């Protein structure tokens, strides 16, 4: 009797295992994205439209997903949301599948500028999802004069000392210094690195903190008055206090682009293309603008955004042609060693 019971249990388990295997044979895509970066009802809507299941895994930073993907050779993911310099590195590492435009009719929704991106002209291995600029975010009710130069941040006025923050991520941190000196944001030669290092070490003494994640709430609480910010994130501050404004310094900005890529190791290339086509529809793009407050390279989506929103958050209305004037951050390749040592020098400076 006892044995029969065990046998029944085992048989039951075997059936469950088989059932599991067959259900995993049904079409399913694994999407690696940032938490909250896609519409909440996306999984249901995509399933309804295509019959394909989505499994979302979230990463907090580009660096984190980059580590996972390089460690696994891209195995285990079908779509990865990643910023353009990282997409570029993944492509150079030969981990990405080519994008087949014939399978993505919604490419027609994108601005013509979206196919002119410096890291991937013609969108051969990456599809832009959002884009924007990096500049200064400030409390217009506290600051005496509107900032208009990177030097307003790097050499702050006396009353701003201890009231400014800079982005902690190495490439953007250094970019502020490069742009102030009229250099390319992809500079990696030692002499320029040294110049910018000395500048940023001097600025460090006036900093409240290096901050990538809560700089806008520091403006809202009044801890900070002027912060180094991505345009979309400055909008989060503006949403809580209309006196918080964004400006691109006169020396310019970088153009950041978050993209979708398909790893070569993806199990289901066809379904992955269907997902990209789905995410490029106007409705999804509009959701991003209204909820993430980023600009999207999706013309059809941008045209449906409420004009009141563009008035409240002027940086959302920056025209694509203006964005394209800025240089994108590119993978530095072998320049990375000298670059990261310079960043360590700044971080270790007292």
């Amino acid at each position, binding site marked *: 009797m006892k044995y029969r019971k065990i046998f029944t249990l085992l048989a039951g388990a075997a059936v469950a295992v088989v059932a599991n295997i067959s259900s995993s044979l049904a079409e399913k895509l694994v999407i690696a994205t940032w938490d909250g970066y896609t519409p909440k009802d996306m999984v249901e809507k995509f399933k309804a439209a295509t019959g394909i299941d989505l499994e979302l895994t979230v990463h907090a*930073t580009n*660096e*984190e997903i*980059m*580590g996972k993907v*390089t460690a696994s050779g891209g195995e285990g993911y079908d779509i990865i949301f990643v910023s353009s310099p990282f997409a570029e*590195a993944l492509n*150079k*590492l030969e981990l990405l599948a080519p994008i087949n435009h014939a399978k993505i009719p919604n490419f027609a929704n994108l601005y013509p500028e979206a196919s002119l991106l410096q890291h991937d002209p013609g969108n051969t291995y990456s599809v832009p999802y959002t884009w924007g600029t990096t500049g200064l975010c400030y409390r217009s009710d506290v600051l005496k004069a509107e900032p208009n130069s990177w030097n307003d941040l790097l050499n702050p006025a006396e009353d701003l000392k*201890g009231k400014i*923050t800079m982005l*902690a*991520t*190495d490439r953007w941190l250094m970019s502020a210094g490069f742009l102030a000196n009229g250099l390319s944001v992809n500079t990696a030669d030692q002499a320029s690195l040294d110049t910018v290092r000395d500048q940023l070490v001097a600025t*460090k003494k006036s*900093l*409240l*903190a*290096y*901050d990538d994640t809560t700089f806008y709430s520091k403006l809202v*609480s*009044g*801890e900070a008055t002027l912060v180094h910010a991505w345009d979309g994130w400055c909008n989060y501050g503006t949403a809580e206090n209309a006196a918080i404004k964004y400006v691109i310094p006169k020396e310019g900005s970088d153009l950041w682009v978050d993209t979708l890529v398909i790893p070569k190791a993806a199990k289901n290339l066809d379904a992955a293309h269907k997902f990209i086509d789905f995410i490029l529809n106007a409705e999804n793009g509009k959701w991003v603008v209204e909820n993430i407050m980023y600009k999207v390279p999706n013309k059809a989506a941008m045209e449906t955004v409420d004009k009141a929103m563009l008035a409240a958050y002027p940086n959302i209305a920056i025209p694509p042609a203006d964005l394209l004037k800025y240089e994108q951050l590119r*993978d530095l*390749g*072998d320049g*990375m*060693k000298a*670059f*990261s*040592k310079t*960043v*360590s*020098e700044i*971080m*270790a400076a007292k």
Partner: protein
Amino acid sequence: MSSRFAAWLLMAPGLLWLGILMVVPCLLVFALAFFERGTYGGVDWSIFTLENFRRAGDPLYLSILLDSARIAAVSTLLALLIGYPAAYAIMRAPERWQTSLLFLAILPFWTNYLIRTYAWIVLLNPVGLINTVLIHLGLISGPLSILYNEFAVILGLVYSYTPFVILAIYSSLQRLDPSYAEASRDLGAGAIITFIRITLPLTAAGVAAGAVFVFVLSIGNFVTPDLLGGGKLQMIGNLIYDQFLTARDWPFGATLAGLLIAVMMALLMLQAVAANRARGDNGKIA
């Protein structure tokens, strides 16, 4: 079945666990240290090199290591100065309270480390609770700079790791035979002399265990310098984190991690030797 064989058998699951999930992965990571970063991240397996060790000897990285050691040492000292009296007080409290008091000491561990650290940001920031109250009381005219600096980092480390010190010292105080102290008092030594000559040496093992715990956890910490130091303080943990993730230079990150592990192992071994010696001394007095 010999008792020695039984002992090995009983230890086998634990050893396997340690071996497969700790020793092997660490060795795999350390192996990376002998190769070069590929141009686009990843590892170039074609070149075997000691270059990373030469790079790690750069004064810049050594100064970061020394700085981390200094911050960890200060945190350890403060944790001992707070933890020892606390453990002593718990030991001297009525027996029925001791469990509750120990429970209170470890209660913070029931909360996530990040949340506890963020709580300090709420308290210490320029418009935070402490500054607001002090300004309203008229005790200070402008906010104190008590966040995003070394003070805040040390505060965070001491706060987080003092409970370990309390537990370690409490357990060695508890094992201490009270008759030693009584004998010392009977022979005319005052309370202070008794503490310095009898109690403290006999609980040295607990102090060493607590100290090594705080030091090792502090020197490798990267969350606290990031949050409470406002990213302005670079500790060796942050440097390793940055090499693995931001610079995508796994070989160099592995080299630095290997050096840090070596420092920690050396300390743990010293502590084990000290503990053994203390046990020997104990026997001598008895």
